């Protein structure tokens, strides 16, 4: 188990290095640079700024300097935001995005498992048909549409009540987090529902369910102890990649709900070619996702003993 974890972590480090290098190359191949904004009005000022930020050096050297700093955990200073270190931007805003993401994932997983199990129990009957219709909606409608609809719903509720029960936008309290995380988790929830449904239907035809029945166990016990636990395995497998989908999907939802998350800075940085912020946030997100996937794999081992010993 330890050797397995170490191996996965090593592979993870290589992945992150690859992400960093690819981002660096892609960024420098895009025409223009961060100094093309209004700051560098004359050639002289531009030259001074280039020296200040090290942009006068050859690209290869810049890469080495960047990698060296990154190894020490320093992503440098933002080009566009006055005197703001990239590390500070991440430290200030990532917790917001992470909270949103974790909450969304929580909704998605609980919802997916519960709805999926329900549809399997009511297979081909009305509850199944209704839920599966919603699932198709959830998968095909983009999150910004749900975000806008969610806000509209909140506005209507609040104005009907005459006071603000759940805030429409902003960040701070738990009630602020409810709607955006629900919206953010919706498509994942729909996906997990489908997965859980087919997985449940597969497990119910397994021989060991027949054995459990022949043992004289109650339907409830068979459902929870024999069917659910085995059916949930594929759901856990897909959770790793889904964390990626949720964190990247979060950018749009953060924008609609005016949430001060890291997503906004990431998008802004790409638009303004803010080299250090692009690099910092990309590498950070990449490392975060790689870590999540590894964590999920380890978690999988706890639920499925067959994975544990290999």
């Amino acid at each position, binding site marked *: 188990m330890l050797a397995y974890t170490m191996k996965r972590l090593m592979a993870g480090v290589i992945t992150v290095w690859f992400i960093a290098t690819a981002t660096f190359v892609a960024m420098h191949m895009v025409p223009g640079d961060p100094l093309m904004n209004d700051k560098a009005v004359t050639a002289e000022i531009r030259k001074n700024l280039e020296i200040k930020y090290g942009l006068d050096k050859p690209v290869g050297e810049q890469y080495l300097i960047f990698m060296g700093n990154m190894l020490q955990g320093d992503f440098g200073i933002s080009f566009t935001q006055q005197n703001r270190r990239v590390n500070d931007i991440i430290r200030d805003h990532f917790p917001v995005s992470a909270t949103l993401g974790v909450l969304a994932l929580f909704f998605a997983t609980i919802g997916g498992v519960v709805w999926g199990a329900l549809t399997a129990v009511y297979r081909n009957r009305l509850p199944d048909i209704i839920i599966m219709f919603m699932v198709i909606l959830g998968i095909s409608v983009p999150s910004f549409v749900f975000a806008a609809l969610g806000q509209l719903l909140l506005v209507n509720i609040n104005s009907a009540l005459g006071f603000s029960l759940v805030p429409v936008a902003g960040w701070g309290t738990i009630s602020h987090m409810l709607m955006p995380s629900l919206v953010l988790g919706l498509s994942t929830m729909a996906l997990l529902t489908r997965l859980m449904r087919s997985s449940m239907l597969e497990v119910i035809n397994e021989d*060991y369910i027949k054995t459990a029945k022949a043992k*004289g*166990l*109650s339907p409830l016990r068979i459902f929870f102890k024999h069917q659910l636990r085995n059916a949930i395995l594929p759901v856990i497998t897909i959770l790793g990649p889904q964390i990626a989908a949720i964190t990247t999907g979060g950018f749009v939802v953060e924008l609609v709900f005016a949430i001060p998350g890291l997503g906004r800075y990431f998008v802004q940085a790409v638009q303004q070619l803010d080299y250090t912020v692009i690099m910092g946030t990309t590498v950070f997100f990449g490392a975060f996702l790689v870590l999540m996937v590894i964590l999920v794999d380890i978690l999988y081992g706890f639920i*499925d003993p067959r994975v544990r010993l290999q």
Partner: protein
Amino acid sequence: MSDRILEVDNLSVEFATYGGTVKAVRGVSFHVNRGETLAIVGESGCGKSVTVQAIMGIIPMPPGKITGGSARLNGKDILGLPAKQANQFRGVEIGMIFQDPMTSLNPTMTIGDQISETLMVHRGLSYKDASALAVQLLDKTKIAEAAKRAKQYPFEFSGGMLQRAMIAQSLACNPAVLMADEPTTALDVTIQAQILELMAELQRTENMSIILITHDLAVVARMADRVAVMYAGQIIESGSVDDIFYRSSHPYTLGLKEAMPSNKGDRDKKLSPILGSPPDLFHPPVGCGYFARCPYAMKVCEHQQPPEYLLAGDTTHQARCWLQHAGAPVNKRLYQTGANHAD
């Protein structure tokens, strides 16, 4: 009468499929005496598994449906009970083991936990007591280092070991009947012999009845006291193991015997298979199910179902074949006791 532990009468089971209704079991009657082994033999799809699974109430309904008949365990009707009542005999009075031990145990639970689960549910034991008893049960089925093995998962067991564990699990509550649905089909021959030996031994020590479903006549000869031969959803011949092997009274039983390889020297003798294929159970034949393949078929066989004939001079040997009718022609290969033959 009192030593009949399980009595099944005229059981019929159907399955609704997209292609229509499959009449999988068409009026099956048999009984099992206390402490004996009844073998139910027949080719794939003849309804032998469905029969026992219907008795256990574990066929999925829908699409399955029990359309008639009864099953009495110690005189109590047990057919088609709702889960709550059925669970008073499932795993308690009737234990069951299945064909493929590799897939018949929950892959995410330890062997010990799966056995103790039965004990906790039916006997109300604490987890600790049940676990200790589970180890004893594994020991009883001759699994070495039972205590260590109980903490392992199915994927850490071999096929033979898993079938032993399955047997241990089914014996947890000392059932009066053990239903074994092709228990050795998925195992190799040496392991088969071990498992059969174990079952025979446990039958003696626990004094239980065994219903053994198989398509292996060698297994039948070795294990069974009585045999029921099934074909196309019906029992076409039943009797003691000697009756079936030495006094075969149905052409199908004869066909099965001839299709079996022997180790008696005549190596050059070719096996003679039963030609044709079993009837379509979407539209079961009006007459005898074996009509189309039977070398001795008569006109009456096509249009009328043969009744179950009790062979003269015997109380248990029955055959569902017109050739046992008093007016039927004499057939030298079949055991007949009809009037014509007696002349």
